[in-house]
């Protein structure tokens, strides 16, 4: 896509990509350029102006000046140093550095840069403004008194998360004296002028933010202005022990650090105080950042329960589990299947595994071709069958980031319209189609993007059958040349001047229409909009969501996805439904139905192994065990134990059944017996990022090829369209499973969500009749949702929502008011 160029930084030649910002080029080569407001992966804010450098003799800001071939960059001259020092002095005005209490506790960029730029005296002053500290939500706490208005929080919220829930607002500070403008360095003055006018406020005009409470603003804050309400003033950062891990809540598998220290003076057991991340390279969601205290505390080993568990496993016909387990545990369960013939049932991974198989046959490889990191680099993204806001935060961030950073465009196909997605960019078009028309959506994508030469004749003519032409009247702006005679006042001569004047003309044109667009609920003007969207677009990507795996025609959909990937030059990535669904799908041979005596692992069963503390035998939760997880980026990432666990783990049971290893992590190299995995020991797996942002965690799965078959997708039918009262199996944001629910900072309840209008119509409490059984739900209004379809969460495994929905994600139900 881009070309390699050579630039000189401080006299040394470095290679970088064309169009890369100077700052990133410098960072990638380990050259330090100070910058406060810039965030990798987000647009430059130009608030701090401290990244000033000289490029080819001109002063530019390294964060928004792009590198050109042969450019000579000087990172510091005397003039620049003076400017930077003045900027830091301004930041230090009314912001003491011997701050006694602050939750940043020394991890403070303001302190660091003040020292770095050797500010040892202050030359500026202005009366301070009283700025209150406020709570923005049940999670966020903002202390305006500490804020330096670098706007990193604003930038990340808009460019990464897509919530755009905060903005800069008036500070009410005193105006800068005019004499300063001439006396002080000009960038420092400009920065101060802006700083003195602004603080951060919620963007919806109220005192509370309307956002997903992801807390990424907290992570990026360079000072201690933004903190979570739970964490504020509870501990100093330096007391915390950082444990590198992988977030266990969804398939994003984000890099996180659990930060622990003994709970208090009385209670000396380790406790997780917060979760942090490498925010320049990975963005967390609310569940990842705040749903950390789901550990299962046990007092020692319960031998009786253990012996019962061994008996139960020996007796069991079926082991039922979900994808909240590590790869190692999945392999253990698969070993039980291979050795003792147990059936393995996993509701979330089963459909995904089937879908991958369907997809593998025509595509010729085991896994989807791309990943979400790659998708983030494209400029046209399409999402089909995923409730982007709820299903997977990383997919949503990718969709949003493309709109904001790559001047991208997006198509969002989903039966439930979502105002958040629609607001992510002006080039986002949402198709709110009927449930069951996902095939039609894929056919439309094929029609819009496919290189028709690569398609079979039959498919081509099938696609053509949807086209028809229509004659419409449009108004067009035409530039008309008008000649006027003008008398020149000075000379008295008359001159003929011709001017171009716009004129509206009505015109009849024949336009080509596609009946699929209409079928999918698209706008009449879609063709024109689409033309605009396609301008200057070079790379395309498709996000495939869970709706497709749980579709009655999943096989045909998988074939269509494979065909799109091949013929449309499109990067395709799928969202695994739950944390380690991909790992489980690759490691285990799953069965469809539960039969006979069942041992449930974090699921219902006759004997329950549970990391939730309510089972017959306790198991360690994901923050108490070592192991690897396979995430949606097709990466096997290591996670470490943050808290101690004294009870038994699955490997102990395996040992009792005579097929265990000494430690759970001894299973890690054994993963290689399954396709795509590598024989690497757990302790050899890296977990970090390089300065360039290269992910260096675990290893990437090999996308092995397989024998490919013919790909002739069948025409779609409207037979599976369902109408009436429809329930959609979908969790609220920040809720993914029992463990996120257990965490004390995740407040979202197990309730039915509906659009505001629908919620009003339903009342406070409803009974949902699934045919086989009924469930009572509180109704929660979700103001981002539109339409009549209601969402029913599945995060509580005890309620067994998966079984109620069966092999579908949408179900016609009867809802009665209670």
């Amino acid at each position, binding site marked *: 896509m881009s070309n390699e160029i050579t630039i000189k930084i401080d006299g040394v030649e470095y290679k970088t990509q064309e169009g890369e910002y100077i700052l990133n080029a410098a960072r990638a080569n380990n050259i330090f350029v100070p910058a406060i407001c810039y965030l990798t992966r987000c647009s430059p804010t130009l608030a701090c102006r401290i990244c000033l450098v000289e490029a080819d003799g001109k002063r530019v800001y390294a964060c928004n000046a792009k590198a050109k071939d042969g450019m000579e960059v000087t990172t510091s001259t005397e003039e620049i140093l003076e400017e930077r020092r003045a900027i830091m002095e301004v930041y230090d005005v009314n912001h003491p550095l*011997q701050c*006694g*209490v602050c939750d940043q*506790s020394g991890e403070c960029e303001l302190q660091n840069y003040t020292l770095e730029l050797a500010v*040892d*005296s*202050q*030359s*500026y*002053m*202005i*009366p*301070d403004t009283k700025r209150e*500290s406020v709570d923005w939500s049940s999670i966020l706490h903002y202390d305006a008194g500490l804020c330096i208005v670098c706007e990193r929080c604003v930038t990340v919220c808009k460019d990464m998360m897509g919530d755009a829930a905060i903005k800069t607002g008036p500070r009410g500070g005193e105006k800068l004296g005019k004499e300063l403008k001439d006396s002080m360095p000009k960038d420092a003055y400009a920065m101060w002028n802006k700083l003195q006018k602004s603080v951060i406020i919620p963007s919806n005009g109220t005192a509370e933010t309307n956002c997903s409470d992801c807390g990424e603003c907290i992570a990026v804050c360079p000072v201690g202005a933004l903190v979570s*309400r739970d964490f*504020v*003033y*509870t*501990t*100093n950062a*330096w*007391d915390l022990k950082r444990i590198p891990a992988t977030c266990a809540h969804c398939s994003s598998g984000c890099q996180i650090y659990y930060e622990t220290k003994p709970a*208090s*003076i*009385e209670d000396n057991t380790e406790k997780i105080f917060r979760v942090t991340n490498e925010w320049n390279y990975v963005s967390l969601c609310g569940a990842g950042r705040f749903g950390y205290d789901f550990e299962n505390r046990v007092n020692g080993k319960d031998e009786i329960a253990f012996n019962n568990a061994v008996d139960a496993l020996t007796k069991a016909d079926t082991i039922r589990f979900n994808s909240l387990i590590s790869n190692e545990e999945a392999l253990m369960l698969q070993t039980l299947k291979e050795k003792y013939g147990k059936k393995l049932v996993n509701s979330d991974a089963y459909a995904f595994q089937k879908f991958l198989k369907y997809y593998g046959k025509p595509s010729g490889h085991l896994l989807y071709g791309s990943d979400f990191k790659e998708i983030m680099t494209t400029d046209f993204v399409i999402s089909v069958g995923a409730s982007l806001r709820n299903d997977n935060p990383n997919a949503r961030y990718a969709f949003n980031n493309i709109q904001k950073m790559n001047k991208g465009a997006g198509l969002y196909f989903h039966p439930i319209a979502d105002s958040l997605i629609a607001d992510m960019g002006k080039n986002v078009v949402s198709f709110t189609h009927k449930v069951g028309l996902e095939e039609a959506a894929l056919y439309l994508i094929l029609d819009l993007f496919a290189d028709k030469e690569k398609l079979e004749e039959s498919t081509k003519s099938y696609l053509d059958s949807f086209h028809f032409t229509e004659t419409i009247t449009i108004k067009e702006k035409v530039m008309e040349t008008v000649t006027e005679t003008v008398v020149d006042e000075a000379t008295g001569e008359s001159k003929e001047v011709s001017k171009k004047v716009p004129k509206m003309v009505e015109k009849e044109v024949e336009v080509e229409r596609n009946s699929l667009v209409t079928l999918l609920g698209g706008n009449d003007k879609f063709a024109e909009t689409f033309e605009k969207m396609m301008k200057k677009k070079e790379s395309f990507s498709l996000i495939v969501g869970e709706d497709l795996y749980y579709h009655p025609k999943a096989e045909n959909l998988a074939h269509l996805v494979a065909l799109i990937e091949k013929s449309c030059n499109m990067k395709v990535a799928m969202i695994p439904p739950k944390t380690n669904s991909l790992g489980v799908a690759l490691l285990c041979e799953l069965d469809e139905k539960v039969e006979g005596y069942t041992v449930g692992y974090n699921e219902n069963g006759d004997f329950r192994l549970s990391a939730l503390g309510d089972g017959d035998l306790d198991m360690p939760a994901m923050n108490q065990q070592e192991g690897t997880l396979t995430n949606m980026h097709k990466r096997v990432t290591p996670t470490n134990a943050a808290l101690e666990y004294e009870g038994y783990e699955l490997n102990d049971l395996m040992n009792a059944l005579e097929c265990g290893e000494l430690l759970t992590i001894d299973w890690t190299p054994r993963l290689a017996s399954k396709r795509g995995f590598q024989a690497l020991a757990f302790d050899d797996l890296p977990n970090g990022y390089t300065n360039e942002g290269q992910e260096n965690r675990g290893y990437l799965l090999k996308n092995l090829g397989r024998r490919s078959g013919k790909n002739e997708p069948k025409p779609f039918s409207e037979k599976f369209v369902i109408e009436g009262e429809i329930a959609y199996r979908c969790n609220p944001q920040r809720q993914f499973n029992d463990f996120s629910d257990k965490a004390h900072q995740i407040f979202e309840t197990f309730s039915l969500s509906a659009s505001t209008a629908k919620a009003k119509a339903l009342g406070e409490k409803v009974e949902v009749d699934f045919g086989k059984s009924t469930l009572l739900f509180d109704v929660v209004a979700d103001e981002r949702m539109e339409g009549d379809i209601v969402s029913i969460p599945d995060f509580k495994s005890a309620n067994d929502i998966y079984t109620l929905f069966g092999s579908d994600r949408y179900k016609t139900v009867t809802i009665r008011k209670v």
Partner: protein
Amino acid sequence: MSLEEFKNRNTGQQSYKMLDIKHTPQSGIGKFGQVVERTVKGELFVGLWVTLREMGNALFKDNMHTIKYPLEKLPISPRYRAIHDMLRLLESGHYRCIGCGLCEKICISDCIKMDTKYDENQRKEVTEYTINFGRCIFCGYCAEVCPELAIVHGGRYETASEQRASFSLFEDMLTPIDALKQQKEYDGFGAVSPNADDTIKQTPLAY
């Protein structure tokens, strides 16, 4: 000292007095004679006289050189480092500690622990604070690092107790509110040096 004396490098004989010490007797008779001689000579009373004189002074003239510990105590240096005191603000009476945690961090024997929380006045409140005096080596770093002069060393050096815990809670070390007027600033480790004003550059303030 004259130059001549410098020139005399025979340091072995310089102004030393040679004592007239007799040879230790070897025979039994000789040894017996030495014992008799020393006993009868009365040299013992030369030394004992000093003791008797002081006893007389103490008993009859009330002039004693030792003190009656523990009924009496010697004054100690203000820089003495014994059990910590927690000081209060003189104006408001509120304790000075802001819960910054620097004492906890700097403590080299890792004996200070504190729990803090965000209180209703939007301040950091110290909910619990302990010093494990079984481990404390009274190095004074905590007092030196304290930005508020809140933790200082006091003069309470008698640390024998049935339970060390009886010294170590925040309230035990805190100046009693009724004794606020008697609270003294600490001159030792961590105190502001008398010439502090001369050595710092002041930050300009607009108010």
